[in-house]
């Protein structure tokens, strides 16, 4: 059936549709909650989408199923468009129909190609304002056309509401998609999952059994006993690679990460290193105030360790004793050995790499990325990457990948 196919399409788009959800959804349709396509869009979204990361995928699935418009997963204006299947298919088609010259990819400026692509999408979307594939199903529509639902509740009509197509066209949620790279807004969303539970509060909870116990011993005179409350407290050590120029493009992103982390954790200490860690890390970005790794290892093992660096360097810097290019560093042990000591002490650690995961095997430095990746779980700075990183920091099993 047409609608059931849609539920399977949602699954293909990474939105888990449970049987309960589906049954509730059909129950709502019977109650007349979706008298028109725009209501159906809202109701289906409400029924199946739980997280803002899934919104864009849902909108794309809806556009594809009900309007036959195949949207790429990037927003208009994003040059990542050129890597999408939709763009390549469109280009092939346009060249075949002689709408574009044979070597358009090289002869036309990229902005022009982008503009032409999105214009085509726009036209497809507009073409559906009148007759859509959905309408084309004729009398098989499963929705009651009466707006009167059971229980005397009338569902809001069309008036003033933007149509589903218009909403989808805006791509409001594309930056929240799991594959999106990090920006201000979606970063805090990812870090929100950092949490911990250890007793740390003041003794302000009345301990009833203890009170009764003590009062009994006290000959019936009331003797109140208090115990500690549970409180959130999480300690993070952030180690930032700020050496050389290789990290320069990521400084802004790094600072953003700082700012956001500060809201989320009770105690955050930041240290710096150059390319990789040798005998010491530094308290200041200029690396003049060292803290020996041995001192760092005295921190309790519950500490979360977060590295931020591109893990890109000459193999010698990582693998050999005296590998540091910085003459001041105590580098009698190879850096990799120091990293292993840290990993042993702090099991909940993660290495965040600003280089996108897809290019780890190809970039200059793929060797050191792989070797460090054996010591610390490595994630990239996409929303999905941060989420998995946070799960690792929480010590939970990591979903996906």
């Amino acid at each position, binding site marked *: 059936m047409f609608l059931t196919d849609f539920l399977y399409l949602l699954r293909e788009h990474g939105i888990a549709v449970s049987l309960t959800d589906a049954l*509730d959804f059909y129950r709502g349709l019977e109650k007349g909650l979706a008298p028109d396509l725009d209501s159906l869009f809202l109701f289906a979204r409400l029924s199946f989408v739980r997280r803002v990361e899934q919104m864009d995928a849902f909108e794309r699935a809806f556009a594809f199923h009900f309007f036959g418009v195949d949207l790429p997963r990037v927003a208009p204006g994003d040059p990542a468009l050129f890597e999408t299947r939709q763009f390549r298919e469109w280009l092939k088609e346009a060249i075949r129909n002689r709408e574009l010259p044979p070597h358009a990819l090289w002869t036309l400026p990229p902005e022009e190609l982008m503009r032409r692509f999105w214009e085509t999408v726009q036209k497809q979307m507009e073409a559906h304002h009148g007759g859509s594939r959905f309408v084309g199903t004729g009398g098989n529509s499963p929705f009651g056309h009466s707006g009167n639902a059971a229980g005397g*509740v009338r569902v809001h009509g069309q008036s003033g509401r933007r149509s589903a197509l218009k909403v989808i066209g805006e791509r*409001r949620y594309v930056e929240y998609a799991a594959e999106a790279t990090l920006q201000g807004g979606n970063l805090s969303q990812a870090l929100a999952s950092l949490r911990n539970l250890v007793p740390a509060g003041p003794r302000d909870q009345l301990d009833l059994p203890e009170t009764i116990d003590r009062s009994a011993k006290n000959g019936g005179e009331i003797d109140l006993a208090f115990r500690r409350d549970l409180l959130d407290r999480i300690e993070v050590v952030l180690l930032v690679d700020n050496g050389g120029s290789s990290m320069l493009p990521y400084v802004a992103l790094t600072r953003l990460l700082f700012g956001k982390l500060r809201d989320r954790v009770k105690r955050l200490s930041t240290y710096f290193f150059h390319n990789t860690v040798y005998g010491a890390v530094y308290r200041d970005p200029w690396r003049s105030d060292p803290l020996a790794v041995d001192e760092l290892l005295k921190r309790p093992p519950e500490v979360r360790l977060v590295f931020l660096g591109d893990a890109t360097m000459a193999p010698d810097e990582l693998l050999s004793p005296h590998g540091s290019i910085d003459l001041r560093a105590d580098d009698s042990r190879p850096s990799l050995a120091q990293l292993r000591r840290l990993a042993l002490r702090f099991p909940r650690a993660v290495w965040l790499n600003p280089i996108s995961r897809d290019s780890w095997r190809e970039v200059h430095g793929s060797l050191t990325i792989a070797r460090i990746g054996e010591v610390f779980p490595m994630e990239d700075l996409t929303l999905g990457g941060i989420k998995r990183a946070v799960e690792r920091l929480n010590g939970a099993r990591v979903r996906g990948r």
Partner: protein
Amino acid sequence: MEFTGSDNYYLDPELGAIVNMALVMEKPLLLTGEAGTGKTQLAFEISHSFGMPIEVLRCKSTIKGEEACYVQDTVLRLNDARFGTAGTGREVNNFFDYVIWGPIGRAFRAKQRVVLLLDEIDKTESDVQDNLLDVLEDCQFTLREVNQVVQAEIRPFIVLTSNAKRELSDPFLRRCYCHPIAFPDPGQMREIVKLHFPDLEKGLLDAALAIFYDLRQRGYEKPPATSELLNWLGALQHARATPERLNIPFVGTLLKRTEDILAYRAGGKRPVH
């Protein structure tokens, strides 16, 4: 019964439709979004427009969940056990003389349908959320001391809000209808402002909104939200001032953090973006 907003609250039609769907399906409605998008206000508007009483639980990180249903005034009971209940009308052996109902308890015991608002649910610990899950799903909880079940006769309409300070668990999300409220676009903001300042000059409003959305673009640590805009407009109107882009009067009503104000004075963007 249809929810259409009220006189001093601008209801986005999409949000209105969603509220009605949740009402029909009797599902808890979880609203997320940044501060100033009117999440909490919405629950009060629903209560107001349907004449349903509202019970509010303002969540804190220290909350356990059970006290949202009920607490036993143990200190009073201990005191009564020691010193007697003469003249108080209480009976030490009667548990119910010492129960203080929490918002959830009151909502479940109500004789009519009520709106139950759990405000900023993300502030609670995740195991508290898991505990509340079953309570809200079945609309019942157990009084542990006397092993007695309190069951709601009429399911309350449950509204939850979250600032996404902490992420909610998957099982929790599965039980709710979730809707992220987007920040109002300039058109919607115009409607909101109109409700609060019906006689604001159009020229002033245009200029103010342009500056407001420009400031929000700049990546400040705490970008101004709706309430800041309304306060600022109030101040502008009161002082009969005209907003200028380069020298915003009463900038302190829009930007709250020192770093943000300094960055603004230094001529623009924070280096973060």
